[in-house]
């Protein structure tokens, strides 16, 4: 009941006095009530619970977390080992910048 995956708002309409919309989850489209996200626009990503959109996903905040995680990755890459100190697995390790 507390699970939800992000979907993209593809249609907004009014029904029985309520702000409603269609939300696309990678091809599967379902209806959701948008009363709790009054500022939502077409193309925004939202999290829907039990038929109600409860938040608009914030692209800037998502990017900030990724920047922090990428720093971890860059640090380990520089050392050529994973953070356990073991050499990077050649199958999964990404080529380091500047390497031929």
């Amino acid at each position, binding site marked *: 009941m*507390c699970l939800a995956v992000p979907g993209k708002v593809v249609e907004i309409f009014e029904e029985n006095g309520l702000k409603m919309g269609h939300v696309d989850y990678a091809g599967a489209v379902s209806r959701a009530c948008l009363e709790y996200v009054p500022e939502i626009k077409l193309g925004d990503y939202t*999290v829907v*619970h*039990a*038929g109600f959109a409860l938040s608009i996903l*914030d692209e800037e905040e998502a990017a900030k977390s990724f920047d922090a995680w990428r720093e971890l990755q860059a640090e*380990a890459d520089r050392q050529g080992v994973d953070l*356990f100190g073991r050499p990077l697995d050649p199958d999964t390790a990404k080529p380091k910048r500047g390497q031929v």
Partner: protein
Amino acid sequence: MLKYLDEYRDPELARRLLGEIAAVARRPLVIMEICGGHTHAIIRSGIDRLLPEQIELVHGPGCPVCVTPVELVDKAVALAGRPEVIFTSFGDMLRVPGSRESLAMVRSRGGDVRSLYSPLVAVELAVRHPDRQVVFFAVGFETTAPGNALAVRQAARLGLKNFSLLVSHVLVPPAITALLASPANRVQAFIAPGHVCTVTGLEEYEAIAAGYRVPIVPAGFEPVDILAAILLLVRQAEAGRAEVENEYSRSVRREGNPAARRTVAEVFQVSDRTWRGLGQIPASGLTLRPEFAAFDAEQKFDLSPIQAEESPLCISGAILRGEKKPPQCPAFGRQCTPTHPLGATMVSNEGACSAYFNAQRHRF
């Protein structure tokens, strides 16, 4: 590429985070993930087995289906058996065993039990069937309360006399406080439920973090989210800090969702609740405000007192308190399976037992 999904399932990034956790974690730390959605993600991806051994993950009571008391399931079964009633519920509740029957069994006997994805559909049913009584089983944490509150407001606006809720709403912060206050408590840090916090915001969690000196991190539901949350908790514990740090900032804002909070407060009031497995917790749930009493199924229908009985084999209480793990139950995978569940933790897709069973984790 699925936006906001695939990038949070990146195995390389997950590996880096795991490595960083191992590099930072010095002392033992017991972390509870409150939300059953997190439990399923952790067991499915095997995160608990990849962590350094000094970090232990304990599964919490955050499965609304699992903590709904048997008495209320019995009341739902009694209501669903009435000829004038269309009983509606989220699908999860249908197979939860009551003392004698589940809602699914009532349906197989010809009862009108329908599983809905939204309480607004129940309101529409009440409009379409003025000769029937539509009852919606209002189960859940702070994530489903806004929808149920809006359904009641909509029914009131439409002047419906044939719509009501059987309310079993519970709140996360009082459950955390009850766990922390228990003398048996081992939990030192919490992964807070990301979607509950999306609705409520973070103030109550900040008070708990400060009052009990526990680090708390609201997290998203993908493996990278959970690992990042564990890393933040480990860093806090190692530094001797106890704060709320928001891993899920793409959805959780400090003030939560003000519109949802307003409607919930307008329709519901805080009340004591009994939790299956945890017992009664003061001010840990919601009931309808007196001005919406006409929409309260327990007041509207004469439900004679029911003597509730739990399966003597089921240890879901100890599992919901974080004291035991599913494979420690003698009935797990034998007398108790998702097709023949003895307790709610095996039914729900947020229950710990079903998480272990689905991942074929039969050994402790």
